[in-house]
């Protein structure tokens, strides 16, 4: 009877690697879906401070990002050591913030324009003076919802 044919003894059969591509593709798709591409390259140091009373940020299309911090080592020779604001790939001064927010707001869909949040991604070592200036500019253009973006962690990590 063929059902009870004696197995060929001796050498082990080779492990089939036919499903390997499937496994790798699965991983690939996971990473493609789970990761978010960065819109703009960071030109400033951006070690965010830690906090634990955080709320999740809104969906990405409702957020305007403002980066600030000391220029990263690549730009130090050119832009110096003072903390700077980065808007969309270039260094800016405080007075540009208002115009930037208005321009960004204009690019969003109309129904979202009233619910926009401004996320401040600021390096922990920055002086508050710069942030206060940004806040004043934001108040001028009526962008009142802000979010201090932080890492999740205990405050003791900040020292």
């Amino acid at each position: 009877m063929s059902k009870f044919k004696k197995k060929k003894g001796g050498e082990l059969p080779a492990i089939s690697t036919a499903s390997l591509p499937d496994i790798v593709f699965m991983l690939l798709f996971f990473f493609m879906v789970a990761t978010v591409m960065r819109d703009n390259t960071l030109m400033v140091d951006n070690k965010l401070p830690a906090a634990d009373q955080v709320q999740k940020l809104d969906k990405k299309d409702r957020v305007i990002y403002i980066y600030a911090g000391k220029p990263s080592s690549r730009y130090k020779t050119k832009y110096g050591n003072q903390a700077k604001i980065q808007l969309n790939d270039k260094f800016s001064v405080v007075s540009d913030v208002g115009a930037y927010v208005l321009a960004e707001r204009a690019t969003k869909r109309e129904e979202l324009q009233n619910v926009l949040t401004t996320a401040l991604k600021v390096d922990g070592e920055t002086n508050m003076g710069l942030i206060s200036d940004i806040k004043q500019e934001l108040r001028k253009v009526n962008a009142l919802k802000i979010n201090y973006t932080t890492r999740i962690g205990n405050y003791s990590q900040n020292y």
Partner: protein
Amino acid sequence: MARKSPEVNAGSMADIAFLLLIFFLVTTTIETDSGINRKLPPMDEIIDPPVIKERNIFTVVVNKNNMILVEEKLMDLSDVRSSAVKFLDNGGGVGEEECTYCEGEKDRSSSDNPEKAIISLKNDRETDYKVYISVQNELVAAYNELRDREFTKKFPNDRMTFVEANKMYSDPRTSVKVKTSLKPKLDEIKKMFPQKLSEAEPNKK
């Protein structure tokens, strides 16, 4: 007669997929998308600012040396939360201003009730951002602590804290039914301990 076409060798498929996988692993960065939400006051000047009693204001000052002054006394960051809770939960008011749910000391020289209590956070232009955020974090934590307490006291059947409920409410995966049942509860607690945290403009030099 159609000849049988030879099968394509799929052996290198894994290599190609690995290459793509490694590319994505290297190029993507997981963005942080959480933080402390705040609302700035509108620009138009209030001509006639309301008079607020001194005892209802809890002043927190962070100076340029990153030292924290709470009610004009030097304080360690680890004590800020507890003293803010003590201030908010004081409930020293009598008569109409009495706070029925406060568990504080009912000190007459501290806040009347949580609805009147205001925390004023002031900083210098040279204060470090990370210190400022730490202080903000502690003050928000004080509010959350009290809100959690009231939420679990009021709605013990929900088996969660205010923070968890709020997170669930803002989660897009939560069903509309759950959301509509959560909303009035959250609003009620928010009304009991409104987050009155004022960020004053820094001192001009």
